[in-house]
Protein backbone atom coordinates (compact mmCIF):
# COMPACT_ATOMS: atom_id res chain seq x y z
CA UNK A 1 0.00 0.00 0.00
CA UNK A 2 2.76 2.44 0.98
CA UNK A 3 4.59 1.82 -2.31
CA UNK A 4 1.39 2.49 -4.21
CA UNK A 5 0.89 5.76 -2.36
CA UNK A 6 4.44 6.87 -3.10
CA UNK A 7 4.07 6.04 -6.80
CA UNK A 8 0.91 8.06 -6.91
CA UNK A 9 2.58 10.92 -5.06
CA UNK A 10 5.35 10.97 -7.65
CA UNK A 11 2.76 10.97 -10.42
CA UNK A 12 1.04 13.88 -8.76
CA UNK A 13 4.29 15.79 -8.53
CA UNK A 14 4.90 15.19 -12.24
CA UNK A 15 1.43 16.50 -12.98
CA UNK A 16 2.48 19.95 -11.85
CA UNK A 17 3.62 21.26 -15.20
CA UNK A 18 1.40 23.70 -17.00
CA UNK A 19 1.46 25.79 -20.15
CA UNK A 20 -0.18 25.79 -23.54
CA UNK A 21 0.32 22.85 -25.84
CA UNK A 22 3.09 23.42 -28.39
CA UNK A 23 4.44 26.52 -26.66
CA UNK A 24 7.96 27.32 -27.86
CA UNK A 25 10.48 27.16 -25.06
CA UNK A 26 12.68 29.73 -26.76
CA UNK A 27 9.89 32.21 -27.41
CA UNK A 28 10.28 35.14 -25.07
CA UNK A 29 7.70 37.16 -23.22
CA UNK A 30 9.45 40.32 -24.38
CA UNK A 31 8.43 39.61 -27.97
CA UNK A 32 4.85 38.92 -26.97
CA UNK A 33 4.68 42.05 -24.82
CA UNK A 34 6.04 44.25 -27.59
CA UNK A 35 3.52 43.12 -30.20
CA UNK A 36 0.41 45.14 -30.94
CA UNK A 37 -1.98 45.27 -33.92
CA UNK A 38 -1.28 48.11 -36.33
CA UNK A 39 -4.94 49.07 -36.73
CA UNK A 40 -6.00 51.52 -33.99
CA UNK A 41 -9.36 50.02 -33.02
CA UNK A 42 -7.94 46.51 -32.98
CA UNK A 43 -4.96 47.67 -30.91
CA UNK A 44 -7.30 49.19 -28.32
CA UNK A 45 -9.38 46.02 -28.08
CA UNK A 46 -6.26 43.88 -27.89
CA UNK A 47 -4.67 46.01 -25.17
CA UNK A 48 -7.85 45.95 -23.10
CA UNK A 49 -8.60 42.24 -23.30
CA UNK A 50 -6.53 39.59 -25.14
CA UNK A 51 -3.18 40.96 -24.03
CA UNK A 52 -3.74 40.33 -20.34
CA UNK A 53 -3.68 36.54 -20.84
CA UNK A 54 -1.81 36.11 -24.13
CA UNK A 55 1.30 37.75 -22.69
CA UNK A 56 1.34 35.65 -19.50
CA UNK A 57 2.78 32.15 -19.35
CA UNK A 58 0.77 31.48 -16.18
CA UNK A 59 -2.53 32.04 -17.96
CA UNK A 60 -2.10 28.90 -20.04
CA UNK A 61 -2.92 30.88 -23.20
CA UNK A 62 -0.73 30.67 -26.32
CA UNK A 63 1.53 33.72 -26.30
CA UNK A 64 0.95 36.36 -28.95
CA UNK A 65 2.95 35.58 -32.14
CA UNK A 66 4.33 32.30 -30.72
CA UNK A 67 3.95 30.28 -33.90
CA UNK A 68 4.93 27.07 -32.13
CA UNK A 69 1.84 27.37 -29.95
CA UNK A 70 -0.44 28.91 -32.57
CA UNK A 71 0.21 26.83 -35.68
CA UNK A 72 -1.50 23.65 -34.43
CA UNK A 73 -4.46 25.76 -33.39
CA UNK A 74 -4.53 27.67 -36.67
CA UNK A 75 -4.79 24.34 -38.50
CA UNK A 76 -8.21 23.83 -36.93
CA UNK A 77 -9.47 26.74 -39.01
CA UNK A 78 -10.28 30.26 -37.99
CA UNK A 79 -14.01 29.44 -37.73
CA UNK A 80 -13.29 26.86 -35.03
CA UNK A 81 -11.05 29.33 -33.20
CA UNK A 82 -13.77 31.98 -33.50
CA UNK A 83 -16.33 29.57 -32.06
CA UNK A 84 -14.03 28.70 -29.17
CA UNK A 85 -13.43 32.39 -28.53
CA UNK A 86 -17.10 33.30 -28.43
CA UNK A 87 -18.24 30.23 -26.49
CA UNK A 88 -15.15 29.66 -24.36
CA UNK A 89 -13.03 26.54 -24.41
CA UNK A 90 -10.97 25.07 -21.59
CA UNK A 91 -8.98 28.01 -20.10
CA UNK A 92 -10.21 30.43 -22.81
CA UNK A 93 -12.98 32.50 -21.20
CA UNK A 94 -16.09 33.10 -23.33
CA UNK A 95 -15.75 36.29 -25.32
CA UNK A 96 -12.07 36.54 -24.40
CA UNK A 97 -12.85 39.32 -21.88
CA UNK A 98 -13.88 41.55 -24.82
CA UNK A 99 -17.59 42.21 -24.84
CA UNK A 100 -17.49 45.12 -27.25
CA UNK A 101 -15.80 42.94 -29.90
CA UNK A 102 -17.69 42.02 -33.06
CA UNK A 103 -17.22 38.68 -34.83
CA UNK A 104 -14.90 40.41 -37.30
CA UNK A 105 -12.90 41.91 -34.44
CA UNK A 106 -12.43 38.44 -32.98
CA UNK A 107 -11.33 37.05 -36.37
CA UNK A 108 -8.78 39.81 -36.80
CA UNK A 109 -7.51 39.51 -33.23
CA UNK A 110 -7.06 35.75 -33.57
CA UNK A 111 -5.23 36.24 -36.89
CA UNK A 112 -2.97 38.87 -35.35
CA UNK A 113 -2.04 36.74 -32.34
CA UNK A 114 -1.49 33.69 -34.55
CA UNK A 115 1.02 35.68 -36.60
CA UNK A 116 -1.16 35.99 -39.70
CA UNK A 117 -1.81 39.40 -41.12
CA UNK A 118 -5.18 38.51 -42.63
CA UNK A 119 -7.75 35.88 -41.58
CA UNK A 120 -7.80 32.88 -43.93
Amino acid at each position, binding site marked *: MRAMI*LVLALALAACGE*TGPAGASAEYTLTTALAATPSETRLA*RLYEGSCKTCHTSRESGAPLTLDRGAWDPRWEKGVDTLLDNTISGFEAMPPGGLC*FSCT*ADDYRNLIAFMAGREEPQ
Partner: protein
Amino acid sequence: MVSRRTLLAGAGVLGAGAAGAIGYRAWRDREPPSPPAQNADGDLLWRNWSGIEHAYPAERLAPTSEDELASLLRTAATPIRPVGSGHSFTGLATTDGALLSLDGMSGIVSHDAATHRANVWAGTRLADLGPALSAIGQEMPNLPDINKQSLAGGVATGTHGTGRDFTALHGQITRFRIARPDGEIVECALNRNAELFNAARVGLGAFGVLTQIELQNAPLTRVLKRQWGADLEETMEAWPQLQAQHRNIEFYAVPFTGYAAIISVDPTDRPVSPRSADEDTGALMSLKMLRDTLGYVPALRRAAAQAAFADQQPTEWVDEGWKLLSNERPVRFNEMEYHLPLEAQIPALRDVIAVIERHRGDVFFPVEARTIRADEAWLSPFHGRDSGSIAVHAYYKDDYQFLFDLIEPIFRRHDGRPHWGKLHSLGARDFTALYPRWTEAAALRQEIDPEGRMLNAHLRRVFLDEPA
Protein backbone atom coordinates in the same frame (compact mmCIF):
# COMPACT_ATOMS: atom_id res chain seq x y z
CA MET B 1 -4.07 -22.71 -7.57
CA VAL B 2 -5.64 -20.16 -9.89
CA SER B 3 -6.35 -21.52 -13.35
CA ARG B 4 -5.29 -19.78 -16.56
CA ARG B 5 -8.94 -19.37 -17.51
CA THR B 6 -9.67 -17.67 -14.20
CA LEU B 7 -6.69 -15.40 -14.68
CA LEU B 8 -7.80 -14.49 -18.18
CA ALA B 9 -11.35 -13.88 -17.01
CA GLY B 10 -10.04 -11.74 -14.17
CA ALA B 11 -7.84 -9.82 -16.53
CA GLY B 12 -10.79 -9.31 -18.83
CA VAL B 13 -12.91 -7.96 -16.00
CA LEU B 14 -10.07 -5.67 -14.88
CA GLY B 15 -9.51 -4.53 -18.46
CA ALA B 16 -13.17 -3.79 -18.96
CA GLY B 17 -13.21 -1.99 -15.63
CA ALA B 18 -10.19 0.10 -16.56
CA ALA B 19 -11.64 0.88 -19.98
CA GLY B 20 -14.91 1.80 -18.32
CA ALA B 21 -13.11 4.05 -15.82
CA ILE B 22 -11.14 5.73 -18.60
CA GLY B 23 -14.29 6.16 -20.66
CA TYR B 24 -16.17 7.55 -17.67
CA ARG B 25 -13.34 9.99 -16.98
CA ALA B 26 -13.29 11.13 -20.61
CA TRP B 27 -17.06 11.58 -20.51
CA ARG B 28 -16.78 13.67 -17.34
CA ASP B 29 -14.01 15.76 -18.87
CA ARG B 30 -15.92 16.69 -22.00
CA GLU B 31 -16.39 20.39 -22.69
CA PRO B 32 -19.87 21.44 -21.52
CA PRO B 33 -22.22 22.08 -24.45
CA SER B 34 -22.42 25.66 -25.64
CA PRO B 35 -25.40 27.53 -27.07
CA PRO B 36 -24.99 28.60 -30.73
CA ALA B 37 -22.47 31.40 -31.31
CA GLN B 38 -25.20 33.52 -32.95
CA ASN B 39 -28.99 33.51 -32.66
CA ALA B 40 -31.52 33.70 -35.51
CA ASP B 41 -31.29 37.51 -35.48
CA GLY B 42 -27.54 37.39 -35.94
CA ASP B 43 -26.83 38.58 -32.38
CA LEU B 44 -23.58 37.27 -30.95
CA LEU B 45 -23.59 34.94 -27.95
CA TRP B 46 -22.52 36.35 -24.59
CA ARG B 47 -21.53 33.96 -21.80
CA ASN B 48 -20.10 34.65 -18.39
CA TRP B 49 -16.59 33.48 -17.46
CA SER B 50 -17.65 30.07 -16.16
CA GLY B 51 -20.15 29.58 -19.00
CA ILE B 52 -23.34 28.98 -17.00
CA GLU B 53 -24.98 32.31 -17.91
CA HIS B 54 -25.70 33.28 -21.50
CA ALA B 55 -27.69 35.71 -23.61
CA TYR B 56 -27.82 37.29 -27.06
CA PRO B 57 -27.65 41.05 -26.43
CA ALA B 58 -29.43 43.03 -29.14
CA GLU B 59 -26.98 45.90 -28.58
CA ARG B 60 -23.37 45.99 -27.45
CA LEU B 61 -22.47 49.45 -26.24
CA ALA B 62 -18.95 50.70 -25.56
CA PRO B 63 -18.99 54.46 -24.85
CA THR B 64 -15.71 56.34 -24.64
CA SER B 65 -16.95 59.39 -22.70
CA GLU B 66 -19.49 60.34 -20.05
CA ASP B 67 -21.49 62.32 -22.62
CA GLU B 68 -21.69 59.37 -24.97
CA LEU B 69 -22.65 57.07 -22.10
CA ALA B 70 -25.39 59.46 -20.94
CA SER B 71 -26.80 59.64 -24.46
CA LEU B 72 -26.75 55.85 -24.89
CA LEU B 73 -28.50 55.26 -21.57
CA ARG B 74 -31.48 57.33 -22.72
CA THR B 75 -32.09 55.26 -25.84
CA ALA B 76 -30.61 51.83 -25.24
CA ALA B 77 -32.57 48.59 -25.51
CA THR B 78 -33.60 47.24 -22.13
CA PRO B 79 -32.64 45.77 -19.83
CA ILE B 80 -29.39 47.72 -19.86
CA ARG B 81 -26.71 45.72 -18.11
CA PRO B 82 -23.17 46.94 -17.49
CA VAL B 83 -20.53 44.25 -17.88
CA GLY B 84 -16.87 44.22 -16.86
CA SER B 85 -14.94 41.04 -17.49
CA GLY B 86 -18.04 38.84 -17.13
CA HIS B 87 -16.56 37.14 -14.08
CA SER B 88 -19.75 37.07 -12.01
CA PHE B 89 -21.23 33.63 -11.62
CA THR B 90 -24.72 35.04 -11.10
CA GLY B 91 -26.89 36.54 -13.83
CA LEU B 92 -25.93 40.12 -12.99
CA ALA B 93 -24.89 41.04 -16.54
CA THR B 94 -27.16 38.70 -18.50
CA THR B 95 -29.34 40.62 -20.97
CA ASP B 96 -31.00 40.32 -24.35
CA GLY B 97 -31.26 44.12 -24.34
CA ALA B 98 -28.10 46.27 -24.15
CA LEU B 99 -24.79 44.93 -22.86
CA LEU B 100 -22.75 47.94 -21.82
CA SER B 101 -18.97 47.70 -21.59
CA LEU B 102 -16.82 50.42 -20.04
CA ASP B 103 -13.66 49.16 -21.74
CA GLY B 104 -13.47 52.48 -23.59
CA MET B 105 -13.37 54.41 -20.29
CA SER B 106 -10.15 53.15 -18.77
CA GLY B 107 -7.07 54.60 -17.08
CA ILE B 108 -6.21 57.14 -14.41
CA VAL B 109 -8.01 60.49 -14.69
CA SER B 110 -5.95 62.36 -12.09
CA HIS B 111 -4.14 61.78 -8.84
CA ASP B 112 -2.93 63.54 -5.70
CA ALA B 113 0.56 62.52 -4.60
CA ALA B 114 0.16 64.05 -1.13
CA THR B 115 -3.02 62.18 -0.16
CA HIS B 116 -2.31 59.05 -2.25
CA ARG B 117 -5.66 59.37 -3.95
CA ALA B 118 -6.29 58.54 -7.59
CA ASN B 119 -9.38 59.24 -9.66
CA VAL B 120 -9.82 56.33 -12.05
CA TRP B 121 -12.08 55.63 -15.03
CA ALA B 122 -14.50 52.97 -13.85
CA GLY B 123 -13.83 50.60 -16.75
CA THR B 124 -10.18 50.12 -15.80
CA ARG B 125 -9.29 46.47 -15.35
CA LEU B 126 -7.62 45.71 -12.02
CA ALA B 127 -4.77 44.03 -13.89
CA ASP B 128 -4.07 47.34 -15.63
CA LEU B 129 -4.66 49.47 -12.56
CA GLY B 130 -1.80 47.89 -10.58
CA PRO B 131 0.99 49.01 -12.92
CA ALA B 132 -0.72 52.36 -13.57
CA LEU B 133 -0.85 53.15 -9.85
CA SER B 134 2.69 51.86 -9.39
CA ALA B 135 3.86 54.42 -11.94
CA ILE B 136 2.56 57.22 -9.68
CA GLY B 137 3.87 55.65 -6.47
CA GLN B 138 0.54 54.30 -5.24
CA GLU B 139 -1.08 50.92 -4.70
CA MET B 140 -4.29 49.29 -3.57
CA PRO B 141 -3.01 47.41 -0.49
CA ASN B 142 -5.70 44.78 -0.79
CA LEU B 143 -6.67 43.05 -4.02
CA PRO B 144 -8.86 40.10 -4.93
CA ASP B 145 -7.46 36.70 -5.83
CA ILE B 146 -8.17 37.36 -9.51
CA ASN B 147 -7.46 40.71 -11.17
CA LYS B 148 -9.26 40.43 -14.51
CA GLN B 149 -12.28 42.34 -13.20
CA SER B 150 -13.05 45.93 -14.07
CA LEU B 151 -12.92 48.36 -11.15
CA ALA B 152 -16.62 49.16 -11.61
CA GLY B 153 -17.55 45.49 -11.65
CA GLY B 154 -15.39 44.79 -8.63
CA VAL B 155 -16.90 47.48 -6.42
CA ALA B 156 -20.44 46.87 -7.68
CA THR B 157 -20.28 43.29 -6.38
CA GLY B 158 -18.40 43.87 -3.13
CA THR B 159 -15.26 42.19 -4.45
CA HIS B 160 -12.62 41.87 -1.75
CA GLY B 161 -9.24 40.53 -0.83
CA THR B 162 -8.24 39.50 2.65
CA GLY B 163 -6.83 41.04 5.81
CA ARG B 164 -8.57 41.84 9.05
CA ASP B 165 -7.61 45.52 8.84
CA PHE B 166 -8.70 45.93 5.20
CA THR B 167 -12.12 46.66 3.77
CA ALA B 168 -13.27 45.32 0.42
CA LEU B 169 -12.40 47.41 -2.67
CA HIS B 170 -15.40 49.72 -2.28
CA GLY B 171 -14.27 50.67 1.24
CA GLN B 172 -11.46 52.73 -0.32
CA ILE B 173 -13.81 54.87 -2.43
CA THR B 174 -13.82 58.54 -1.43
CA ARG B 175 -16.13 59.74 -4.24
CA PHE B 176 -17.53 58.61 -7.54
CA ARG B 177 -19.43 59.85 -10.55
CA ILE B 178 -22.42 57.88 -11.76
CA ALA B 179 -24.60 58.08 -14.87
CA ARG B 180 -28.15 57.45 -13.74
CA PRO B 181 -30.48 55.42 -15.97
CA ASP B 182 -32.00 58.69 -17.23
CA GLY B 183 -28.55 59.86 -18.36
CA GLU B 184 -27.96 62.44 -15.63
CA ILE B 185 -24.37 62.43 -14.35
CA VAL B 186 -24.19 62.79 -10.57
CA GLU B 187 -21.16 63.21 -8.31
CA CYS B 188 -21.39 61.42 -4.98
CA ALA B 189 -19.37 61.45 -1.76
CA LEU B 190 -20.06 61.15 1.96
CA ASN B 191 -20.93 64.86 2.02
CA ARG B 192 -22.55 65.10 -1.42
CA ASN B 193 -25.54 63.02 -2.54
CA ALA B 194 -24.71 60.86 0.45
CA GLU B 195 -27.68 58.53 0.04
CA LEU B 196 -26.69 57.56 -3.48
CA PHE B 197 -23.07 57.32 -2.35
CA ASN B 198 -24.07 54.81 0.32
CA ALA B 199 -26.42 52.85 -1.91
CA ALA B 200 -24.42 52.68 -5.12
CA ARG B 201 -20.92 52.06 -3.73
CA VAL B 202 -21.92 48.40 -3.87
CA GLY B 203 -24.71 48.94 -6.36
CA LEU B 204 -24.93 45.75 -8.49
CA GLY B 205 -25.11 48.05 -11.51
CA ALA B 206 -28.74 48.75 -10.58
CA PHE B 207 -28.50 52.45 -9.70
CA GLY B 208 -26.81 53.56 -12.91
CA VAL B 209 -23.33 53.21 -14.37
CA LEU B 210 -20.25 54.32 -12.45
CA THR B 211 -17.97 56.42 -14.64
CA GLN B 212 -15.16 57.65 -12.36
CA ILE B 213 -14.07 56.32 -8.97
CA GLU B 214 -11.68 58.08 -6.60
CA LEU B 215 -9.69 55.64 -4.50
CA GLN B 216 -7.85 56.22 -1.24
CA ASN B 217 -4.70 54.30 -2.05
CA ALA B 218 -1.53 53.62 -0.07
CA PRO B 219 2.12 54.42 -0.85
CA LEU B 220 3.68 51.77 -3.07
CA THR B 221 5.03 49.05 -0.78
CA ARG B 222 7.31 46.07 -1.19
CA VAL B 223 5.85 42.93 0.34
CA LEU B 224 6.86 39.40 1.22
CA LYS B 225 4.42 36.75 0.08
CA ARG B 226 4.75 33.37 1.78
CA GLN B 227 2.90 30.20 0.92
CA TRP B 228 3.14 27.06 3.02
CA GLY B 229 1.29 23.90 3.87
CA ALA B 230 -0.01 22.88 7.27
CA ASP B 231 -2.37 20.52 9.00
CA LEU B 232 -5.92 21.73 8.42
CA GLU B 233 -7.08 21.25 11.99
CA GLU B 234 -4.05 23.10 13.38
CA THR B 235 -4.60 25.89 10.85
CA MET B 236 -8.19 26.38 11.90
CA GLU B 237 -7.14 26.43 15.56
CA ALA B 238 -4.43 29.00 14.85
CA TRP B 239 -6.59 31.18 12.56
CA PRO B 240 -7.08 34.06 15.07
CA GLN B 241 -3.32 34.24 15.72
CA LEU B 242 -2.51 34.06 12.01
CA GLN B 243 -4.87 36.97 11.36
CA ALA B 244 -3.18 39.02 14.06
CA GLN B 245 0.31 38.22 12.76
CA HIS B 246 -0.07 39.05 9.07
CA ARG B 247 -1.23 42.04 7.03
CA ASN B 248 -3.04 39.87 4.47
CA ILE B 249 -3.71 36.24 5.28
CA GLU B 250 -5.88 33.49 3.85
CA PHE B 251 -5.93 29.74 3.72
CA TYR B 252 -7.26 27.03 1.48
CA ALA B 253 -8.75 23.96 3.14
CA VAL B 254 -8.17 21.01 0.83
CA PRO B 255 -11.03 18.50 1.20
CA PHE B 256 -10.16 14.81 1.57
CA THR B 257 -6.57 15.58 2.56
CA GLY B 258 -6.57 17.05 6.09
CA TYR B 259 -4.28 19.67 4.59
CA ALA B 260 -4.32 23.46 4.32
CA ALA B 261 -2.36 25.88 2.15
CA ILE B 262 -1.72 29.21 3.90
CA ILE B 263 -0.80 32.44 2.11
CA SER B 264 0.42 35.56 3.91
CA VAL B 265 1.53 38.96 2.63
CA ASP B 266 3.49 41.43 4.79
CA PRO B 267 5.56 44.57 4.17
CA THR B 268 9.29 43.96 3.89
CA ASP B 269 12.55 45.65 2.98
CA ARG B 270 14.11 42.45 1.67
CA PRO B 271 15.50 42.55 -1.89
CA VAL B 272 13.13 41.76 -4.73
CA SER B 273 12.66 38.07 -5.45
CA PRO B 274 10.04 37.93 -8.21
CA ARG B 275 7.20 35.49 -8.46
CA SER B 276 8.32 32.21 -10.00
CA ALA B 277 6.34 30.12 -12.47
CA ASP B 278 2.79 29.31 -11.42
CA GLU B 279 2.56 26.07 -9.44
CA ASP B 280 -1.03 26.50 -8.22
CA THR B 281 -2.56 25.28 -11.47
CA GLY B 282 -0.43 22.14 -11.51
CA ALA B 283 -1.30 21.45 -7.87
CA LEU B 284 -4.98 21.92 -8.64
CA MET B 285 -4.81 19.51 -11.55
CA SER B 286 -3.01 17.04 -9.29
CA LEU B 287 -5.94 17.21 -6.91
CA LYS B 288 -8.23 16.57 -9.86
CA MET B 289 -6.16 13.55 -10.86
CA LEU B 290 -6.39 12.29 -7.31
CA ARG B 291 -10.17 12.71 -7.47
CA ASP B 292 -10.33 10.95 -10.83
CA THR B 293 -8.21 7.99 -9.77
CA LEU B 294 -8.98 7.54 -6.08
CA GLY B 295 -12.23 9.39 -5.60
CA TYR B 296 -13.99 6.24 -4.47
CA VAL B 297 -11.32 5.28 -1.94
CA PRO B 298 -11.16 8.24 0.46
CA ALA B 299 -8.53 6.72 2.75
CA LEU B 300 -6.15 6.11 -0.15
CA ARG B 301 -6.93 9.55 -1.57
CA ARG B 302 -6.00 11.18 1.73
CA ALA B 303 -2.84 9.10 2.17
CA ALA B 304 -1.64 9.81 -1.38
CA ALA B 305 -2.27 13.53 -0.98
CA GLN B 306 -0.45 13.69 2.32
CA ALA B 307 2.49 11.79 0.84
CA ALA B 308 2.60 14.21 -2.09
CA PHE B 309 2.33 17.28 0.13
CA ALA B 310 4.77 16.09 2.80
CA ASP B 311 7.85 17.31 0.96
CA GLN B 312 6.42 20.66 -0.09
CA GLN B 313 8.69 23.49 0.98
CA PRO B 314 7.38 26.97 1.81
CA THR B 315 7.74 29.40 -1.07
CA GLU B 316 8.55 33.09 -0.75
CA TRP B 317 8.46 35.98 -3.17
CA VAL B 318 9.31 39.66 -2.64
CA ASP B 319 7.94 42.35 -4.92
CA GLU B 320 5.45 45.23 -5.16
CA GLY B 321 2.10 44.17 -3.78
CA TRP B 322 0.12 44.46 -7.02
CA LYS B 323 2.41 41.84 -8.57
CA LEU B 324 1.83 39.30 -5.81
CA LEU B 325 -1.63 39.77 -4.31
CA SER B 326 -3.64 38.54 -7.32
CA ASN B 327 -3.09 35.38 -9.32
CA GLU B 328 -3.71 33.86 -12.73
CA ARG B 329 -6.53 31.31 -12.49
CA PRO B 330 -6.64 29.56 -15.87
CA VAL B 331 -8.82 26.72 -14.60
CA ARG B 332 -12.42 27.86 -14.80
CA PHE B 333 -14.92 27.07 -12.06
CA ASN B 334 -18.24 27.99 -10.51
CA GLU B 335 -18.29 29.40 -7.01
CA MET B 336 -20.42 30.21 -4.02
CA GLU B 337 -19.01 32.53 -1.36
CA TYR B 338 -20.76 33.80 1.72
CA HIS B 339 -19.55 36.34 4.26
CA LEU B 340 -20.20 35.34 7.84
CA PRO B 341 -19.77 36.98 11.23
CA LEU B 342 -16.09 36.46 11.99
CA GLU B 343 -16.74 34.17 14.94
CA ALA B 344 -18.90 31.89 12.77
CA GLN B 345 -16.30 31.38 10.06
CA ILE B 346 -14.41 28.38 11.43
CA PRO B 347 -17.49 26.53 12.77
CA ALA B 348 -19.13 26.98 9.35
CA LEU B 349 -15.98 25.87 7.57
CA ARG B 350 -15.90 22.68 9.66
CA ASP B 351 -19.49 21.99 8.61
CA VAL B 352 -18.67 22.67 4.95
CA ILE B 353 -15.67 20.33 4.90
CA ALA B 354 -17.62 17.62 6.73
CA VAL B 355 -20.53 17.81 4.28
CA ILE B 356 -18.25 17.75 1.23
CA GLU B 357 -16.25 14.80 2.55
CA ARG B 358 -19.43 12.91 3.48
CA HIS B 359 -21.44 13.54 0.33
CA ARG B 360 -19.35 14.94 -2.52
CA GLY B 361 -16.36 12.84 -3.44
CA ASP B 362 -16.22 14.67 -6.77
CA VAL B 363 -15.10 17.96 -5.18
CA PHE B 364 -11.39 18.62 -5.54
CA PHE B 365 -11.10 22.41 -5.44
CA PRO B 366 -9.77 23.80 -2.15
CA VAL B 367 -12.16 25.84 0.00
CA GLU B 368 -10.97 29.40 0.53
CA ALA B 369 -11.14 31.28 3.86
CA ARG B 370 -10.52 35.03 4.08
CA THR B 371 -11.32 37.98 6.36
CA ILE B 372 -12.68 41.46 5.57
CA ARG B 373 -13.15 44.54 7.77
CA ALA B 374 -16.59 46.08 8.24
CA ASP B 375 -17.76 49.11 6.24
CA GLU B 376 -20.91 51.19 6.00
CA ALA B 377 -22.06 50.91 2.38
CA TRP B 378 -25.74 49.98 2.53
CA LEU B 379 -25.51 46.92 0.28
CA SER B 380 -22.04 45.86 1.33
CA PRO B 381 -22.01 42.23 2.52
CA PHE B 382 -19.65 43.52 5.20
CA HIS B 383 -22.05 46.24 6.34
CA GLY B 384 -21.60 46.80 10.05
CA ARG B 385 -19.62 43.66 10.79
CA ASP B 386 -16.13 42.28 10.45
CA SER B 387 -16.51 39.19 8.33
CA GLY B 388 -14.95 35.87 7.58
CA SER B 389 -15.67 34.52 4.12
CA ILE B 390 -15.84 30.96 2.88
CA ALA B 391 -15.72 30.21 -0.85
CA VAL B 392 -16.58 26.80 -2.29
CA HIS B 393 -15.69 26.04 -5.90
CA ALA B 394 -16.75 23.47 -8.48
CA TYR B 395 -14.76 22.74 -11.63
CA TYR B 396 -16.59 24.31 -14.58
CA LYS B 397 -17.18 20.89 -16.13
CA ASP B 398 -18.64 19.47 -12.92
CA ASP B 399 -22.06 19.61 -11.33
CA TYR B 400 -22.46 22.61 -9.02
CA GLN B 401 -26.01 22.09 -7.75
CA PHE B 402 -24.57 20.85 -4.45
CA LEU B 403 -23.56 24.43 -3.71
CA PHE B 404 -27.26 25.27 -3.36
CA ASP B 405 -28.40 21.98 -1.83
CA LEU B 406 -25.64 21.32 0.71
CA ILE B 407 -23.45 24.38 1.16
CA GLU B 408 -25.82 27.33 1.10
CA PRO B 409 -27.95 25.99 4.00
CA ILE B 410 -24.80 25.93 6.15
CA PHE B 411 -23.99 29.52 5.25
CA ARG B 412 -27.58 30.58 5.93
CA ARG B 413 -27.56 28.82 9.30
CA HIS B 414 -24.49 30.86 10.24
CA ASP B 415 -26.12 34.18 9.29
CA GLY B 416 -24.12 34.58 6.09
CA ARG B 417 -24.56 37.17 3.36
CA PRO B 418 -23.75 36.09 -0.21
CA HIS B 419 -21.08 37.65 -2.39
CA TRP B 420 -23.06 39.58 -5.02
CA GLY B 421 -21.09 38.18 -7.92
CA LYS B 422 -21.20 34.56 -6.80
CA LEU B 423 -23.89 31.92 -6.74
CA HIS B 424 -26.78 32.29 -4.30
CA SER B 425 -30.51 31.68 -4.31
CA LEU B 426 -31.68 34.61 -2.19
CA GLY B 427 -34.31 37.22 -3.00
CA ALA B 428 -35.55 40.57 -1.71
CA ARG B 429 -37.28 39.12 1.35
CA ASP B 430 -34.04 37.46 2.48
CA PHE B 431 -32.01 40.60 1.93
CA THR B 432 -34.48 42.72 3.88
CA ALA B 433 -33.67 40.54 6.89
CA LEU B 434 -29.92 40.42 6.24
CA TYR B 435 -29.22 44.11 5.50
CA PRO B 436 -30.21 46.82 8.02
CA ARG B 437 -30.43 49.49 5.27
CA TRP B 438 -31.97 47.30 2.56
CA THR B 439 -35.38 49.04 2.53
CA GLU B 440 -33.81 52.47 2.02
CA ALA B 441 -31.54 51.19 -0.74
CA ALA B 442 -34.40 49.46 -2.54
CA ALA B 443 -36.58 52.58 -2.30
CA LEU B 444 -33.80 54.74 -3.73
CA ARG B 445 -33.28 52.31 -6.60
CA GLN B 446 -37.03 52.45 -7.35
CA GLU B 447 -36.93 56.26 -7.33
CA ILE B 448 -33.92 56.39 -9.66
CA ASP B 449 -35.14 53.73 -12.08
CA PRO B 450 -38.94 53.53 -11.71
CA GLU B 451 -39.37 51.62 -14.97
CA GLY B 452 -36.72 49.08 -14.07
CA ARG B 453 -34.70 49.72 -17.21
CA MET B 454 -31.59 48.32 -15.54
CA LEU B 455 -33.29 45.30 -14.00
CA ASN B 456 -32.85 41.92 -15.65
CA ALA B 457 -34.40 38.69 -14.37
CA HIS B 458 -31.68 38.18 -11.77
CA LEU B 459 -32.03 41.68 -10.34
CA ARG B 460 -35.82 41.43 -10.37
CA ARG B 461 -35.44 38.51 -8.00
CA VAL B 462 -32.92 40.39 -5.87
CA PHE B 463 -34.85 43.66 -5.60
CA LEU B 464 -38.46 42.66 -6.25
CA ASP B 465 -38.63 38.97 -5.29
CA GLU B 466 -39.91 38.15 -8.76
CA PRO B 467 -39.17 34.52 -9.67
CA ALA B 468 -36.53 34.20 -12.39
